[in-house]
């Protein structure tokens, strides 16, 4: 009887194809939007190269993209000492690179030496350069390694999420990897084939070696329409980072494929030029440096409408420079600035602005008119600017929208400072506040509204400098959080950047892919690549 029942269950499973079984094998396919500029994990900076690094590189520790917590990988444990200057890792025993070369502490030391070599110009290495001086690596007995930096680095352990360990001894050099896949074929400009790493160390709970999928094919495809078409034809298995329009198209075709993971870390924002030496008339400089003026503009913008119309509801009004998606560091006391044109006019009145025949004028009688520049060809930003144009006309302000090619725009905002306001987005991958140092320190080049200041131009910028340095120099997460919360509050009050929306992390995943749980952090869909599997039919067909 039991045997009969078992056969019945088996037959039922086979008969109903929808109850498909995840199994090893098969080829996962998706598109890269550009060719990877490098396959050397230490030099990866572009999206495509980082994709390859993520899928092939073995790291000591990994930020779990779902929980945002740090988890052991090649290192079983780690310890920060010496006030955050030193980190020691205990490594797993008996691991091998994809080509069979044994993994040891020497490889970690070699990787760090390579990474910090100024001649290599590693973008990943830049994150570790907190001060002048040499980085010391020490190979210790019992498969341990200690790395010492010249100055403390807050959030040091999380930075190792980006460091793919390369072999010191392998003849294949950086092509020998410790991650779930290795690069088996690279047809320049066309595709890459990644094959399952037979020496990958991780196993699932039942002891089955990971990854499940035998190979990954990455087709280089710039055209989003073709990418969409290929997904609907079943030629590829998922699309990462979908635009709102394409996402709605997926929803209309097959809602089960569409995944909206919620607000991402990316933000869209505008800011006013506050550079003292800029070639703007003095009365405009006075407008842009006024907190009341910036707050009024912020309150006159209907962020809900932008999220609903421009992003088809797949965005949320931004609160500040930290997205609510950043679970630990986001200041939950803050709310997005409400759309309130009456309040905006009251704030402007405090600075002597007044409405005259529907036109807002300053104390000296100048009509309030300014331009906002954005990059040409980005229809979302152009739409946002056009919506802001209508919103500001509601308080008597004339906004001229100017789209410029990207090099011209960068020239204006970084060299000539010949602009009034700018609307751009920020792609953010890092959770830790230290990644924001280059924006919020008044001396930083990317302190966009008034970069590279010798001394802070305002008291609130001096306060931000102090708090950002304080959070960077302590290892106590609670203290860091307190300081960083204050920075967020000051930024919210002063609004040097007027944050508009946080776009949602949208993706489309074929039902043939099992165990896919797209998240807001990159790489959204395939963050757990070693645990993805394909339905039995797909796996067999391949």
């Amino acid at each position, binding site marked *: 009887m039991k045997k009969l029942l078992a056969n019945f269950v088996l037959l039922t499973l086979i008969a109903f194809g929808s109850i498909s079984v995840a199994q090893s094998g098969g080829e996962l396919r998706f598109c890269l939007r550009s060719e990877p500029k490098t396959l050397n994990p230490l030099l990866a900076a572009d999206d495509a190269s980082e994709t390859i690094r993520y899928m092939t590189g073995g790291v000591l520790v990994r930020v779990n993209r779902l929980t945002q917590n740090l988890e052991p990988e090649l290192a079983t444990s780690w310890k920060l000492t010496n006030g955050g200057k030193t980190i020691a890792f205990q490594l797993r025993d008996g691991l091998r690179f994809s080509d069979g070369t044994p993994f040891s502490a020497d490889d970690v030391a070699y990787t760090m030496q390579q990474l910090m070599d100024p001649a290599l110009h590693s973008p990943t290495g830049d994150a570790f350069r907190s001060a002048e001086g040499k980085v010391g690596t020490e190979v210790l007995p019992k498969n341990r390694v200690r790395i010492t930096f010249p100055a403390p680095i807050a959030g040091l352990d999380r930075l190792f999420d980006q460091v793919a360990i390369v072999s010191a001894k392998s003849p294949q050099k950086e092509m020998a990897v410790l991650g779930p896949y290795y690069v088996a074929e690279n047809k320049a400009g066309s595709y890459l084939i990644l094959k399952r790493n037979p020496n990958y160390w991780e196993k699932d709970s039942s002891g089955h070696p990971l990854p499940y999928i035998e190979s990954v094919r990455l087709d280089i495809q710039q055209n*989003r329409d073709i990418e969409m078409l290929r997904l609907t034809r079943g030629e590829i298995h998922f699309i990462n980072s979908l635009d709102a329009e394409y996402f709605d198209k997926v929803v209309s075709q097959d809602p089960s494929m569409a995944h909206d993971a919620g607000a991402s870390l990316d933000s869209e924002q505008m800011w006013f030029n506050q550079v003292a030496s800029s070639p703007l008339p003095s009365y405009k400089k006075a407008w842009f440096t006024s907190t009341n003026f910036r707050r009024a503009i912020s309150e006159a913008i209907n962020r809900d409408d932008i999220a609903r*119309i421009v992003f088809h509801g797949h965005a949320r009004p931004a609160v500040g420079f930290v997205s609510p998606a950043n679970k630990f560091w986001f200041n939950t006391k803050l709310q997005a600035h409400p759309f309130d044109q009456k309040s905006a006019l009251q704030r402007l009145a405090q600075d002597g602005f007044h409405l005259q025949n529907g036109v807002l004028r300053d104390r000296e009688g100048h009509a309030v008119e300014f331009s906002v520049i954005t990059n040409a060809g*980005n229809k979302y930003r152009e739409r946002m600017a056009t919506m802001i144009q*209508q919103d500001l006309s509601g308080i008597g302000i004339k906004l001229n929208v100017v789209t410029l090619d990207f090099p011209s725009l960068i020239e204006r905002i970084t060299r000539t400072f010949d602009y009034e306001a700018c609307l751009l987005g920020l792609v953010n991958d890092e959770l830790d506040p230290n990644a924001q140092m280059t924006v919020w320190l008044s001396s930083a080049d990317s302190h966009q509204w008034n970069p590279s200041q010798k001394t802070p131009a305002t008291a609130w910028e001096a306060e931000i400098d102090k708090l950002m340095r304080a959070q960077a120099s302590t290892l106590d997460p609670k203290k860091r959080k307190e300081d960083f919360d204050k920075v967020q509050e000051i930024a919210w009050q002063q609004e040097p950047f007027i944050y508009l929306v946080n776009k949602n992390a949208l993706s489309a995943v074929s039902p043939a892919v099992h165990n896919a749980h797209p998240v807001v952090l990159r790489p959204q869909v395939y963050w757990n690549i070693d645990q993805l599997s394909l339905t039995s039919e797909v796996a067999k067909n391949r």
Partner: protein
Amino acid sequence: MKWARITAIVFLLTVSAACLLADFIAPAPYAHQFREEPDASPSRQHPLGTDDLGRDRFSRVLYGTRVSLLLAPAAALLSSLMAAFIGGIAGFSGGRVERWVMAGTDLFLSLPWLFLLITVRALLPLNVSPIVSVLITFAMLGCLGWAGAARIICADARALAQSDFILLARASGSNGFQLLWRHLVPNLKPVLYAQFWISVPVFILTEANLGILGLGVAEPLPSWGSLLRELEGFSAISGQAWQLVPLILFILVVSSFHLVLTKEELPV
């Protein structure tokens, strides 16, 4: 082909009249965003639906056509006059003047137009109104589009300068200006007309291309370029056939210009 030319002329006149009367015909201001109705289907209130920001598409087509249809001929006139002046002088003078002027023209022709336009556009002041920006865009097109026509006019002027009736006019005591104004220019008219009519659709297309790159007419003023940008990505327009109206109108207008051109060529 007479009926085709007449149809083209009637069509162009009808479209021009509709555009000129846009203030009376348009159901809504072209820039007004009906934010509760983005991407709406055609209705009595919005005959061609609304665009992605909720702006009435029919109104935008009317005003956009007005912009492109009025300013493209103006730019074509400017470039044709420049071509007539430069090409005419070069062809009539001949010799070293012609060689130098034509060398300059060839150099001008070899410039990458698009990059030049992008560069010039980027150097313009930022705080200009959309109307001024569109005037500047078409003025630039006019100033940059003379070189090809100048070569043709130069060749024609050279042939005319060596013709018997010019020789006769010289012999009868006409000075340089009289030769140029009384004899050369009237005989260059047909080719100038042809160059003018060829340039009109070229400038419309160029503005549309600039618009597709986001470098054409500034928001919220519509133009065919900005209207055609809606068609970026074929997946976005499937099931919304009314979005194709600006494209169809554009094709019809450009085709009509070519049919009108044939009429001008016949008397030559």
